[in-house]
């Protein structure tokens, strides 16, 4: 099935408003079923806490940021970590049925493959810092906190998109 999916031509993406409403209903389902919203950066935090805890249990417990992920069922059964595993599975399945699975490095026409991997890594690292300080990312703050009308979440959105628009002209070489 996977090889058949790789050979067929990719289907066009869904209408963004339809996909957005569907995503909103998924978020609403999380609120109704769990009493909490979606997230992504929390999964990175709990898995980082899990690795630190395995390497240096004392240091992990002494660190207030990692320590909070070490209670309960432990960092590897954190709700957001399981949810993000689901995100990977869901994304894979959606791409599979729409013939959009393919191994590549997506990049601007002027960027080498290695340079793209480097900017992706660097961008991720900066977002990691930002998401820790902001207590969440585009999922936990923008979507979840946004729908709950949390002031801090809307402040995060304003900061994130404001900064992205400010630096985008300097980064034009990466994408065009």
């Amino acid at each position, binding site marked *: 099935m996977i090889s058949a999916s790789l050979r067929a031509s990719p289907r066009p993406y869904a209408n963004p408003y339809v996909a957005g409403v569907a995503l909103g209903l998924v978020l609403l389902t999380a609120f109704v079923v769990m009493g909490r*919203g979606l997230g992504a950066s929390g999964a990175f935090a709990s898995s980082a806490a899990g690795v630190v805890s395995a390497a240096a249990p004392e240091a992990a417990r002494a660190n207030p940021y990692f320590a909070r992920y070490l209670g309960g069922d432990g960092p590897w059964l954190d709700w957001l970590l399981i949810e993000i595993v689901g995100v990977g599975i869901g994304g894979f399945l959606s791409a599979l049925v729409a013939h959009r699975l393919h191994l590549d490095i997506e990049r601007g026409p002027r960027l080498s493959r290695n340079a793209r991997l480097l900017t992706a890594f660097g961008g991720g690292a900066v977002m990691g810092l930002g998401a820790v300080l902001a207590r969440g990312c585009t999922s936990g703050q923008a979507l979840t906190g946004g729908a709950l009308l949390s002031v801090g979440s809307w402040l995060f959105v304003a900061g994130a998109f404001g900064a992205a628009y400010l630096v985008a002209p300097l980064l034009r070489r990466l994408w065009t």
Partner: protein
Amino acid sequence: MTAPYFELGYFGTRGALVAALVIGIAFGWCLESAGMGSARKLAGQFYLTDLTVFKVMFSAVVTAMLGLFWLGRIGVLDISRVYVPETYLVPQLVGGLLFGVGFALGGLCPGTSCVAAATGRLDGVALVFGMWCGVLGTGLLFPALARFYERTPRGVLTLPQVAHVPYGVAVFLVVLAALVGFMSAERIEARPRIGA
């Protein structure tokens, strides 16, 4: 009130993890089908060539917001039992600014990078790894950042509270802003572009 089910004890932690997986799969499916696993598509948001990010995110926020409001209003959902992220003004603004720089540089956000990676994009894998290292590094330096992290706490603070308007009015104004935003987005995408 019959919801939120987990908060009201309808099922335990094992059920919660099954819910996490199912909700995650649906989340990832929505993101991928909208094209949100593509860094070039997402970066188009910042050059005003492709406003998919804005349309998907804002319609999702509006849908969930309206659902919360009406389920609360008809008495199905006890909104006071839904966890609202607490507000810390300065760290969230600064964190947002840094996040935006990383987003423009990497072209994907944490959730969409997982979709990109799962669909075979190696730049998505690199971004997931970068994000993980960034969170790990910040976590290791956390004792030095803890004072900043705790600055300007405002607890659970919502837009209707600061604007001194009823919840329903705030919901209505956000819907109105979304509709204006969607119309503007369509006009921006439709305009002729030099060199395009």
